[in-house]
């Protein structure tokens, strides 16, 4: 969006503050809603002194679709499709949250095979999401090639998803009480082969970016947030762990069959952009190892529990949450005993992570704001819902 014609209806603006230097004012810069670095339709208003950011006001809501309201009017099985479209780069992880919430409410357990299929899909999706993050983050810093390399690998993951669920992105594959259908026959061999390719791809990104001198200069020591501040802001996921707080829902409140698997949680200590980036590289490697273990555990069996086709959970309220690639995605359902939830509220990790943007950026340069926003790894579909 170019500056002159900034739309009138754009929410509150920062008030112009005179610069302490006599005769000068700070410049207001508007970034977004259409800006290559805002990862969608996020808008931020910057007050800059030269290149240095004095103040920043984030504006969201340019993708507010009213999902929560719509969910109150849909059957539980239909809500899954809306959850697919929340955080549209980690669809399986979203589906897992809603189905596990309803299962918790109904007190049903899916068959062990279905649980493992879910874990494998979610971890593949975590890798896919992180691959997108490496690429877009590199683009924010001016390196174009990593994105293309990572999409090459992402395309392979999507091909696997397609063979399982029939869709590249919006799967609608997890159901309350299991999964829609069993995986294809060659699934295990394909997944294992894909694991090797992904490991190679992640290493490639690691070699291309992580040790790069310019990359290090741009990321380390930028956008530091301490562990206490991160908790205060309600951050989660890699952003929280980069600040030294080891909070991962897969470990802290194990859901599905994660407690049977052996994996590590990367935790940073500096809380800067480099830590947030590198943690995601290590997390993707751990996900590959989780997939291998889960495939080794798989045994033939049912993929759907014996429940009614149309879920009708009892009255009550439930909060269920899972570790999304972006953080702790939760859902709070108030049920009145019908086929539809009475109230459904999503805890969006990107939304919480984005709140801290102002604290992270003030005092840095304009170019750093873009990098910091990149490491928060927001998806606007989830921020605005």
């Amino acid at each position, binding site marked *: 969006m170019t500056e002159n014609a900034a739309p009138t209806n754009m929410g509150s603006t920062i008030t112009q503050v005179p610069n302490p230097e006599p005769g000068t004012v700070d410049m207001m810069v508007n970034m977004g809603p259409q800006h290559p670095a805002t990862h969608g339709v996020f808008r931020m208003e910057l007050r800059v002194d030269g290149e240095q950011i004095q103040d920043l006001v984030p504006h969201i*809501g340019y993708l507010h679709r009213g999902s929560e309201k719509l969910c109150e009017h849909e059957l539980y099985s239909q809500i899954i499709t809306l959850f697919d479209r929340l955080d549209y780069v980690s669809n399986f992880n979203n589906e897992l949250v809603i189905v596990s919430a309803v299962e918790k409410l109904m007190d049903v357990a899916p068959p062990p095979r279905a649980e493992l299929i879910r874990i494998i899909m979610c971890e593949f999706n975590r890798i896919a999401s992180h691959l997108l993050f490496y690429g877009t983050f590199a683009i924010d810093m001016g390196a174009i090639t990593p994105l293309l390399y990572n999409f090459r690998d992402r395309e392979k993951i999507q091909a696997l998803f397609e063979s399982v669920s029939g869709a590249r992105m919006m799967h609608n594959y997890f159901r309350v009480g299991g999964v829609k259908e069993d995986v294809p026959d060659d699934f295990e061999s394909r997944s294992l082969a894909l694991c090797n390719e992904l490991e190679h791809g992640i290493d490639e990104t690691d070699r291309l970016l992580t040790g790069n001198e310019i990359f290090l200069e741009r990321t380390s020591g930028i956008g530091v947030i301490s562990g206490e501040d991160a908790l205060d802001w309600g951050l989660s996921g890699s952003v929280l762990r980069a600040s030294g707080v080891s909070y991962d829902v897969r470990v802290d409140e194990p859901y599905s069959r994660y407690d049977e698997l052996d994996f590590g949680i990367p935790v940073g200590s500096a809380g800067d952009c480099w830590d947030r980036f590198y943690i995601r590289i290590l997390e993707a490697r751990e996900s590959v190892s989780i997939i291998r273990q889960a495939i080794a555990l798989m045994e033939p069996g049912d993929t759907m529990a014996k429940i009614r086709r149309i879920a009708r959970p009892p009255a009550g309220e439930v*909060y269920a949450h899972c570790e999304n690639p972006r953080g702790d995605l939760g859902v709070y359902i108030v049920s009145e005993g019908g086929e539809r939830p009475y109230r459904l509220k999503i805890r969006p990790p990107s939304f919480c992570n984005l709140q801290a943007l102002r604290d992270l950026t003030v005092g840095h340069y304009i170019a750093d704001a873009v990098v910091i926003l990149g490491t928060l790894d927001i998806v606007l579909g989830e921020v605005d819902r």
Partner: protein
Amino acid sequence: MTSQGSSGGGNNPSNSGAKSTSSPVKRREPQVQRAAVALPPEGLVLAERLPERLATHKIEVGAAIDEVVCRVPADHLVDVCRQLKDDPTFGFDYLRLLTVVDYVDPDGEFEVVYHLYSMKHRHKMMVKIRLPERRPSISSVTGIWRGADWYEREMHDLFGVEFEGHPNLVPLVLPEDFDGFPGRKNYPLNDYEEW
């Protein structure tokens, strides 16, 4: 965006009961089966400690599936939250979620729900406040958990709940000229419209 105003009218609390047809389910009926409650060990400990420590605040402790639920009178909210965060027995340093539930009948009530978590003790609980729909106003908890900032702004947008003491309670997700409170139960869903 102007057409929204005529169809909405959601900010008028008096007709809330009449327009509740859009809500798909009736309010709790006695024959509906309720979800079983099974608190984990740390939850049981918490449920014991809460009434002891917060005796002065007229709280009610209950449970929902695996979480402790603590009902607090609206005017005690900030004190209770402050104590829940600062008291080392509780140590709730992480606000997971803040939400509002709109209970239409009998007389229109909002329930503000705070989902808390403690990184130190790894236990969790819900704090609930009841508000009348006629004048939904509650003190802000942004001074205790800064993460409540955007949640409160969003809830202000969608439900029209006033959070007193919030530093910047301006529209967040909705346009500034949006009319009505779309989160409320009496705000209808769209039919196809030429926009």
